[in-house]
């Protein structure tokens, strides 16, 4: 009982310090659109402190990329470097998850349910996911080297909150973008008293996804 009370005090003190630390934090708002001015969904916006501070906030996290109705959900998942990711299969058919990406080459041969061991992503950058049974299944994991990141919603907007004031290099990545994410890098100053807004216009490549259905009547001779 005494230990429980001590734990509660430790938690309260921790929360107080965390609040004090964040009370001076700023917010970064980003809007990503394509070459036609349309909002871009699933764009990853990353802010890296130029002075190298706050990187100590990096820590391993446990994340999931589901397989639902023979699709990866979410289509784009952002995790921190060193994170463990589970790939639960919520379909009633087995999947065979794999990646050829230089950031993480791995394979989860045919399985149902949730594999016992998660996959650790320890190298920053994008990782493309496929399924060897269902060729149309395509998903992405972006492994972030900064804790200040966001992913754009359907309206192309993302909000990165609790960003300590300072100078940042901010860049954008999207699975269909032309060019490198480094070419999108810009310097931004985050202020504790105002929201920093940024906007990107990406040129997206056409996407050729493998169709789920095929058909057509046969010929009569």
């Amino acid at each position, binding site marked *: 009982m005494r230990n429980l009370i001590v734990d509660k005090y430790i938690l309260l003190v921790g929360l107080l310090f965390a609040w004090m630390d964040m009370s001076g934090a700023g917010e970064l708002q980003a809007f990503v659109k394509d070459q036609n001015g349309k909002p871009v969904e699933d764009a990853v916006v990353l802010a890296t402190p130029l002075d190298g501070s706050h990187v100590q906030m990096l820590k391993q996290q446990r994340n999931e990329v589901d397989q639902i109705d023979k699709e990866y959900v979410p289509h784009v998942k952002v995790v921190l470097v060193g994170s463990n990711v589970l790939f639960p299969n919520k379909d009633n058919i087995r999947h065979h998850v*794999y990646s050829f990406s230089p950031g993480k080459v791995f394979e989860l041969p045919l399985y149902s349910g949730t594999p016992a061991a998660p996959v650790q992503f320890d190298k920053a950058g994008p990782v493309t996911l496929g399924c060897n049974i269902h060729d149309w299944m395509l998903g992405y994991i972006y492994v972030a080297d900064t804790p200040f990141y966001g992913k754009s919603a359907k309206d192309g907007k993302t909000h990165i909150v609790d960003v300590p004031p300072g100078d940042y290099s901010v860049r954008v990545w999207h699975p269909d973008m032309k060019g490198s994410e480094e070419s999108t890098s810009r310097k931004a100053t985050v202020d504790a008293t105002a929201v920093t807004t940024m906007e990107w216009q990406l040129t997206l490549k*056409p996407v*050729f996804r493998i*169709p789920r259905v095929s058909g057509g*009547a046969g*010929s009569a*001779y």
Partner: protein
Amino acid sequence: MGNSDVGVRHDGNVNNAQLNHDIAGDSALLAGISATGFFPLEHGSSLSVTGETRVESYDRYTGLNNLSLGAALAFRKKWALGPYAPWTGLSLSSAHLNYSNNIRNGWRHQVAIRGGERILERWNVRAEYLYERRTAKTQQPDQPGISGDIFSYNSRAVTLNAEYAWDESIFLTCGVLLRRGGVVATTSETANMIASSEAIADDPVFGEHFYAYRMYGTTRGLDVGLNVAVSRNSLLRASISRLLTHTAGDNDYAKTVQTVSWNYSY
């Protein structure tokens, strides 16, 4: 896993006739529904079992209306990991065909060997060898010494298909066909047809004085299609095929077939 499709097909020479005054074109409403049990196996292989029923309902020649019930067993192997890996497959299928005009009733058995590969981001190619055996009830011989077993024959066909992704949802297809084996042409009686036929019988579907002739023929075909993925699970397809058949005795015929169909999988 289920699949259903509905469509319309116009065949400009539904009776495979050579002479202009014999050629009959007709349109048919098509519908099909199938259920597939799909079983992924180790090392990139899979097995599927499908049960299917199809109906065809013709506008003018209602004797061609038919219902088929069939089943198929297919094995497929991918030879590497990923969407660009080459694959091969073998399938066995059988269907019972039930026509309004019951001389056509019978079984269709098929064995197919397939292979394919997505060679580039936009290009997908496929080849198939198909052996088909049709069996039907033997009819009363119409000509002395010539079989009445019209709708029983074998054939072999090779098809090569290519698919090009125009954009995210539009796919253009092109295929060529070479087929050798039995064909059935229904025309008015000619001496040349009789001389080169392997079987002859009355065919009341196309009217009086029309006879069905079974001959050995070679068909060359070209098919182009436009596939539009209208949603994640459905596909709209329009295609046109041109088929030229050369038969024994030079009873050659040509036809153009246009099909529009909508396919939905779930």
